[in-house]
């Protein structure tokens, strides 16, 4: 009896010791996998500074990473975020930290044009894949190398479709108003070039400085045209829209590129009813992936997603898809090629890249409609699988 018990105890202890020493096949496999460092995703986000909407970016990234369990194949994923303070010089410092100290494998962001150009300037020579979250200015496209990807497109490349829509909607003259900086000017240029290429005429162009508080004089100065086309920063659009509504100019209002999401639309209320915008995505897009994304985002964050959140989610999705294609390999040349070959269904629709690293996807003309007392963006026209590069790619 005693010897049987002793033998039993001995065999249990021996098995335990073997397991501890990693003698089991499972332990061996796990040990091999854990030897691989995690795939490091860097994100340049303006947590501090005058663009509080940047906080939405991390929410989008984390949602996707949570969805895949922070793993791709046998590689774990880690997220390294840095605050750019919405300043170009800080962006370069933080990009340098991500690349040289943290040794990230891919970088997402930033959004502000000045920060983005500074980041592209630094990151391009490193060859690390760099996915932007906002439309790229022309200079960014020119500066960027084989490792810069803008799945949201080039600024003029997107707004040319709102110019095209304005023509197709029957408008022949237009009064343009836009923020007076690179993004505003390029958004306007895309719209104007496409509209005029079709035969339309832009009869006025008002350039609005940052920090304009009262938009009433600009509205009063608007010349009578078939439509008004606008691009301003979100909080400045909120100042323009009520003035435009009060003035009863009777001109359709087209946002050359989406400035604000549904939540801000509802602050303007019925005054926003009927305005037109353009974007890859809106809350109401009717496809299973979008419904799943919106539901998951609201469940996690108790709020509707913003454009930056969906952009970050989709950028992360693209990275994960590329990593699946490379089998977890992260060498820059391999990962860059894999990203360029990505052809994936996202909440915004099917997305791929041109040889320049600019997105190919759908663009939706959106209309603000009143649905049971709530103003929402509804897609009314879709430009399917277009390249977000000017001039209008066939």
């Amino acid at each position, binding site marked *: 009896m005693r010897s049987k018990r002793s033998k039993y105890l001995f065999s249990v202890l021996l098995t335990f010791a073997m397991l501890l020493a990693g003698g089991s096949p499972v332990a061996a496999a796990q040990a091999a996998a854990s030897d691989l460092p995690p795939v490091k995703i860097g994100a340049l986000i303006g947590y501090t500074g005058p663009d*509080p909407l940047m906080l939405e970016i991390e929410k989008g990234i984390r949602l996707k990473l949570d969805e895949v369990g922070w793993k791709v194949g046998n590689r774990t994923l880690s997220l390294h975020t840095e605050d750019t303070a919405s300043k170009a010089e800080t962006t370069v410092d933080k990009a340098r930290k991500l690349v040289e100290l943290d040794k990230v494998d891919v970088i997402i962001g930033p959004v502000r044009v000045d920060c983005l150009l500074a980041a592209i300037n630094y990151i391009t020579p490193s060859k690390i894949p760099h996915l932007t979250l906002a439309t790229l200015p022309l200079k960014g496209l020119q500066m960027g190398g084989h490792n810069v990807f803008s799945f949201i497109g080039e600024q003029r490349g997107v707004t040319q479709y709102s110019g095209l829509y304005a023509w197709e909607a029957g408008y022949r003259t237009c009064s343009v108003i836009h923020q007076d900086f690179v993004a505003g000017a390029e958004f306007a240029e895309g719209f104007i070039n496409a509209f005029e290429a079709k035969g339309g005429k832009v009869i006025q162009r008002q350039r609005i*400085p940052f920090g*304009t508080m009262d938009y*009433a*004089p600009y509205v*009063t*100065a608007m010349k009578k045209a078939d439509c008004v086309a606008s691009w301003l920063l979100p909080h400045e659009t909120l100042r323009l829209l*009520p003035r435009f509504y*009060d003035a009863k100019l009777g001109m359709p209002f087209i946002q050359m590129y989406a400035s604000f999401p549904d939540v801000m639309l509802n602050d303007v209320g019925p005054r926003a009813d009927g305005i037109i915008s353009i974007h890859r995505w809106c809350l109401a897009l009717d496809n299973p992936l979008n419904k799943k994304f919106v539901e998951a985002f609201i469940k996690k964050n108790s709020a509707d997603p913003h454009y930056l959140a969906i952009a970050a989610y989709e950028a992360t999705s693209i990275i994960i898809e590329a990593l699946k294609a490379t089998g977890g390999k992260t060498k820059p040349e391999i990962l860059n090629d894999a990203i360029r070959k990505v052809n994936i269904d996202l909440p915004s629709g099917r997305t791929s890249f041109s040889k320049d690293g600019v997105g190919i996807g759908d663009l939706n003309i959106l209309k603000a409609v009143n649905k049971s007392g709530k103003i929402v963006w509804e897609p009314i026209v879709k430009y399917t699988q277009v390249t977000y590069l000017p001039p209008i790619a066939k």
Partner: protein
Amino acid sequence: MNGIAYGMILFLIASGFSLIFGVMRILNLAHGSLYMLGAYFGLTIAKVSNSFLLGVLAAIIGIGVVGLLLQRAFLERLYKQIPEQVLLTLGLVYIFSNLALWIWGPFAKVGTAPGFTAGSINLGGIFFSVYRIALIFVGLAVALCLYLFQEKTWYGAVIRAGMHDKEMIIALGINYRLISNLVFILGSMMVGAAGFLGSPILGAHPWMSFEVLLLALAVIVIGGFGYVQGALMGAIVIGLIDSFGKVFFSDFALFTIYLAMIIILLIRPAGLLGKTR
């Protein structure tokens, strides 16, 4: 009309700043933050209660309390220490902006004009917002009340006297500390009200403090500080310059205000209605 209406909002913002700096010699760079917080307080209460009036009251009382706490906890310890006041209040701007971001989120908000002021009226072929016309009358009413308070009441006389010789006022046995606190609260309440009343036109977002502060400074530089008349004159001048500038020199619209400031500083540094010491 646009210029005058805009000027009235600027008057409401700047009159408090003018009083506080003129009477107490406190350079409160967080004044723009008080405007922002007034907008947020008012918008929150107005949304919950569905009452514009309650929103105004919430903004007035809320920012009055914030102003009092600011004055008692920090600013009264820094009397005549302008660099320290600048540093402290600048830091408070960032604190308040991030607090607003944390509490109300990153999305800008815009107020809705109440009831009968929500529409537009046709004035000579141009539709003009009824709310902006109402703001003109509100601004004028507030200016009149402040003027009467300043010129016809004992408190007003003490405040005016204190601007010239604080020590004499104290020597007469008047509790100048109490008067100063009341002035700070009054100034804060006014800017809080301005925040909510201005929200249908200027909106509210966490980083608007500096935009508002610059305008307030421009108004008191042009009008002169310490007196209601100066703030009103400065506000109307800025409002008109801004409106005409946007129409006729739209590319340089923002510069026109600062050009006016430069000219006034060169010709009459105390402001149009300010008194030279």
